[in-house]
């Protein structure tokens, strides 16, 4: 008779067992902040549809200290989300060859981060000029 009795270990709390997994869960969780900001903007859109008073109320609410702290937290979390998003980009892209040589993961990450920074700055400048 076989003495085999393979033992299957529990996966309970798997993400706490390795710092790599803890970081993974943290960066995946920052997606909730992206969602929170999307909801904030959506509320703004709804308020705009409700007329000038509602819109001005929404704008005033954004200037409260609580809203500023909330937006600061959003900025930090979304910046981290963007950073980790580009950090895993090399594993998600097919090989990119430049002059026969495969583009290094470092070049892909840097390229992504620079593109994100330029796009963000461009957007800020554009919005600033429209507002002014």
């Amino acid at each position, binding site marked *: 008779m076989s*003495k085999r009795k*393979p*033992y299957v*270990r529990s996966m309970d709390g*798997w993400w706490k067992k*390795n710092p*790599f*997994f803890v970081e993974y869960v943290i960066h995946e969780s920052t997606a909730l902040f992206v969602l929170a900001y999307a909801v904030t903007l959506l509320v703004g859109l709804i308020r705009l549809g409700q007329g000038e008073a509602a819109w001005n109320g929404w704008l005033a609410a954004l200037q409260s200290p609580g809203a500023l702290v909330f937006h600061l937290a959003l900025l930090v979390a979304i910046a981290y989300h963007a950073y980790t998003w580009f950090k895993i980009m090399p*594993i998600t*892209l097919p090989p990119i060859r430049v002059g026969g040589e495969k583009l290094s993961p470092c070049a892909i990450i840097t390229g992504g981060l620079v593109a994100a920074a330029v796009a963000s700055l461009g957007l800020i400048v554009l919005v600033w000029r429209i507002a002014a």
Partner: protein
Amino acid sequence: MSEQKFIEIEVLRYKPESDEAPHSEVYKVPFTDDMSVLQGAQYIKDNFDGSLTYRWSCRMAICGSCGMMINGVPKLSCETFIRDYYPNRITIEALAHFPIEKDLVVDLSGFIEKLESVQPYIIPAEKRSLDQGEYIQTPAQVQDYMQFTSCINCTLCYAACPQFGLNPDFIGPGAMALLHRYNMDSRDGGAEQRMELVASEEGVFNCSAVGYCSEVCPKHVDPANAVNINKTNAAKDYFLRFLSPKGGAK
């Protein structure tokens, strides 16, 4: 002569014939600076308990047999040195996410079945006779799949993949890297046959891009890249079927 150094090695032991669950045992092992963790295990087997069970063969990171969790990280024990942990304790455990057969030996039968399922051989696009001569491949074409040929089936990537731990049916990083190796080979025409598996319930969409598999791979195969490129391939295949139906889709 320098003083003999000792290190504590804590081993997760499991004897299927008598144990209900694994338990830890600690051994105080004398070591020299050139000793690997595998040699530490061998010292335990030779001097403390001959029943300690583990797999090993080449001692030079080629055979892929001696993988284990070393302080919670999947590593080949033959290329991991005791000196790097001293004076702290080393804990060794069978590779995570696989059923433990005995002590440090895991049940790899599921992995072997997955390897077979990816059809890891060249499936020629059209039948070719001997007098047509050899296949011609340019260095650039070789580069397309070369890194994926380096896999030694050590399964460290599976021990690094929580999605495999949560769903043991997931085809997993190692087998997908091998599948991709053949899909990328200019001599191969089997990508379409393999697509059914890539896009299946067990396929690439189990992956949530944790990326730890590529981090622990001792051969820099980057299995996460193979899995993620095939997500794109599967999505393309799915949508392009609407434009040019191939029939036989399941």
